[in-house]
């Protein structure tokens, strides 16, 4: 409930804001936009912040990356390493290595804060991809990609691809044993592309593998090409969100034409700022406490050495797994053989990404739904889509496990061949089983309307006209009555939304921290009544 103090504080704050805006307006004449921007509404559901985890990881990557770029030397020239005790890594003293590898050893052992920067950079990349993957899942399972947001789905996938490639090019820069092994695999996959493969591989590398042109080229790719692509795509991504406004879960007072939540200024900015600081803290802690990619143990890359258990970073693991699981089939036609790595290394990811890019269209065909949506689906209400998503996750998990077969086999004391066989069947069986379970679970959840993981917190106590009390949260079997009680109920425990408000005593959804905004999206209103022109 709002108190007098809170109201006074709000008035005071607005006074300051106005002074600030006036100052800007006097100079730029732009306070209209800024006022609007500061009042922009962000939904109060935690899963909406995961996209922001991704964004802030990118910020950390940029900052640490610039520091690393000051010391990294993008050169494959052969040098002899001469560390002095206390300044450098003695067990590699006197060895031949590339200048690039030497510079990364220097960053790790000689440059002040170099190693912690390197480790933060790598951890940020690992967490970045986790956040993107989770964010993608949220968008997928809640149907946030539906009209009018299909474009942003495509931009998002382009972001995902760019970040993956950026990560892989970064992993290849130190020129240690793992980098080189990864690049060797990629060289072969590129070579396997029918007709153009050999030319393409020689063009990219500038010579036979490993050559000396790739490292400087990768540096340009990692330092300029992909970061610029990511910044551009991210800008487009955020501008579209700005323009189209956020989606939100259905809930009390939430309709297709409004959006509820916190204003950008001050509530959301504070939330977001807090998250930013936590992310810097967590990545700093990871970088300082947990070793990542100890390149000095892998040693410099030589084409004639390799290490057991060589794997890519986790987000490329599924591609490595795909190559490991593909059977040794040969395809010959018209006297030409299509080299084996082409199928698992190019075709499989090609198909996977095509389906992902086309999903909004596929989804539209499946549900014959051509209308614009600003309210999200609950995953259980679209069992088929949820089943497809869970199946896809099972598919990726199976392939990622395949990338760790040597470690798994050693740990489980299980023959390598058996493990590969199990995972080969798993590629087909796991998605079907996981999808079927997800489908059934959705149906069951629809029936009980309980939250799948959280037990209902709080509840709403109703006093009826004749003086009887009952709680709406734990009313089993009375689901048919939801409308009778007003829809406030089913969504409060549906997404854990109201629970938080009740906990912190902030009052009802109309408390002063909240605001509502009209969605000025013409499509939204119009499309509900009329059929979509592109429909069949």
């Amino acid at each position: 409930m709002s108190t007098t103090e809170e109201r006074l504080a709000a008035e005071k704050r607005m006074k300051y804001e106005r002074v600030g805006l006036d100052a800007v307006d006097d100079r730029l004449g732009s306070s209209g936009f800024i006022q609007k921007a500061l009042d922009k509404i962000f939904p109060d559901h935690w899963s909406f912040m995961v996209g922001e985890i991704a964004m802030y990881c990118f910020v950390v990557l940029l900052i640490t990356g610039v520091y690393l770029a000051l010391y990294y030397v993008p050169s494959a020239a052969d040098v002899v390493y001469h560390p002095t005790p206390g300044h450098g890594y003695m067990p590699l003293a006197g060895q031949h290595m590339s200048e690039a590898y030497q510079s990364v050893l220097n960053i790790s052992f000689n440059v002040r804060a170099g190693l912690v920067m390197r480790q933060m950079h790598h951890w940020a990349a690992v967490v970045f991809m986790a956040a993107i993957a989770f964010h993608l899942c949220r968008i997928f399972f809640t149907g946030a990609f539906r009209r009018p947001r299909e474009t942003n789905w495509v931009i998002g996938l382009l972001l995902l691809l760019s970040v993956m490639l950026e990560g892989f090019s970064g992993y290849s820069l130190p020129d240690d044993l793992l980098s080189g092994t990864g690049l060797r695999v990629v060289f072969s996959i590129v070579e396997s592309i029918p007709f153009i493969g050999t030319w393409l591989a020689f063009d990219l590398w500038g010579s036979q593998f490993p050559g000396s042109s790739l490292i400087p080229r990768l540096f340009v790719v990692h330092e300029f090409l992909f970061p610029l692509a990511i910044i551009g795509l991210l800008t487009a991504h955020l501008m579209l969100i700005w323009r189209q406004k956020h989606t939100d879960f259905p809930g009390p007072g939430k309709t297709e034409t409004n959006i509820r939540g916190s204003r950008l200024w001050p509530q959301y900015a504070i939330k977001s700022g807090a998250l930013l600081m936590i992310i810097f803290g967590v990545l700093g802690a990871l970088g300082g406490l947990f070793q990542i990619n100890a390149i000095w143990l892998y040693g410099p890359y030589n084409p004639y050495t390799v290490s057991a258990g060589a794997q890519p970073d986790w987000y490329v693991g599924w591609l490595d797994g795909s190559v490991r699981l593909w059977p040794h089939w040969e395809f010959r036609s018209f006297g030409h053989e299509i080299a084996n790595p082409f199928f698992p290394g190019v075709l499989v990811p090609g198909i996977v990404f095509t389906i992902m890019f086309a999903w909004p269209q596929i989804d539209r065909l499946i549900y014959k739904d051509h209308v614009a949506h600003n309210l999200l689906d609950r995953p259980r209400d679209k069992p088929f889509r949820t089943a497809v998503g869970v199946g896809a996750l099972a598919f990726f998990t199976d392939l990622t496990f395949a990338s760790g077969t040597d470690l798994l086999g050693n740990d489980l004391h299980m023959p390598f061949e058996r493990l590969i066989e199990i995972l080969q069947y798993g590629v087909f069986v796991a998605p079907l089983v996981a999808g079927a379970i997800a489908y059934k679970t959705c149906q069951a959840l629809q029936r009980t309307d309980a939250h799948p993981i959280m037990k209902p917190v709080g509840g709403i106590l109703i006093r009826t006209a004749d003086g009887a009390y009952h709680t709406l949260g734990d009313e089993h079997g009375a689901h048919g009555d939801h409308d009778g009680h007003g829809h406030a109920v089913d969504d409060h425990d549906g997404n854990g939304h109201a629970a938080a408000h009740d906990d912190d005593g902030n009052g009802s959804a109309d408390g002063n921290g909240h605001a509502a905004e009209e969605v000025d999206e013409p499509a939204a209103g119009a499309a509900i009544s009329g059929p979509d022109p592109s429909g069949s």
Partner: protein
Amino acid sequence: MTRTLKLLRRVLRGPASRRRILAGPAAVMALGVAAFAFMAVTGTAAQGANAPVSTNASDIAAGEQLFAAHCQSCHGVNGVGGTNGSPELIDAGAAAADFYITTGRMPLNATNNQALRHHSYFNATQTRDLVAYIADLPAINSAHPLPRVGEEAFNPTSPGIPTVAPLCTGPGTPSGCVTLSDGQRYYSLNCAQCHQAAGAGGMLSKGDIVPSLHNASLTQVAEAMRVGPSPMPVFGTGQLSAKQVSAIAQYVQYLHNPNNRGGLGISHFGPIAEGFVGIVIGFGVLMLASRLIGNRG
């Protein structure tokens, strides 16, 4: 060179018809091998000395008793080998005996198991006696020849227990010392493809496990190279000189506790382990944080 010898022996022991056909080429090859051996012996620097093995008759007798009690059921009387797949031990040599006993690989429980490291079953004295006995088996068998039953030893040149040269630690270190840098180079060339760059271990085909190297002592590492505990290949004196073996053994010892700059060494297991930590600890904490922050209005 040992491989060549091994091949030669196998060829010479083949059926009579094959033997006749191969006699000519074998003679030529024998000449070549002799020449090669001569060059190898005279061409390389001084070989490292082997550690002394007891030749004391009472030790050998004690070893014989232990052998009869714990090993004979599989390896046969006088180590002629068993029909259950246990190899003959006559040519196994002191290094094999010491390695298999001190790493607890022998006595084995069942012959179809891969012999892997366990707690050593014998104390230092018993080990000395058994090693003395097995090192004496060629003499025992030439005195009382019995037909050999088991497969031949992994390295039939009966390698002795190698000694490992010390690390060069600064100006004043003894000549013949080795460097970690050489060890790293030879290790990544010869061992990392199976044992992983940081010695974490891995997997071969048909369910054979490549163990981690974090429990092997200096001597055991050197022995392993010379013996080649199947399915690991033998690294004979033609492949790795005594100095190179010492350098590798010292580097493996260093890997027990390597420079762990940068925190907890999960990266010894590679990017999969790192990804796990990044997702569970890093992303997990951030999810919790956004869960706590996110739902507040």
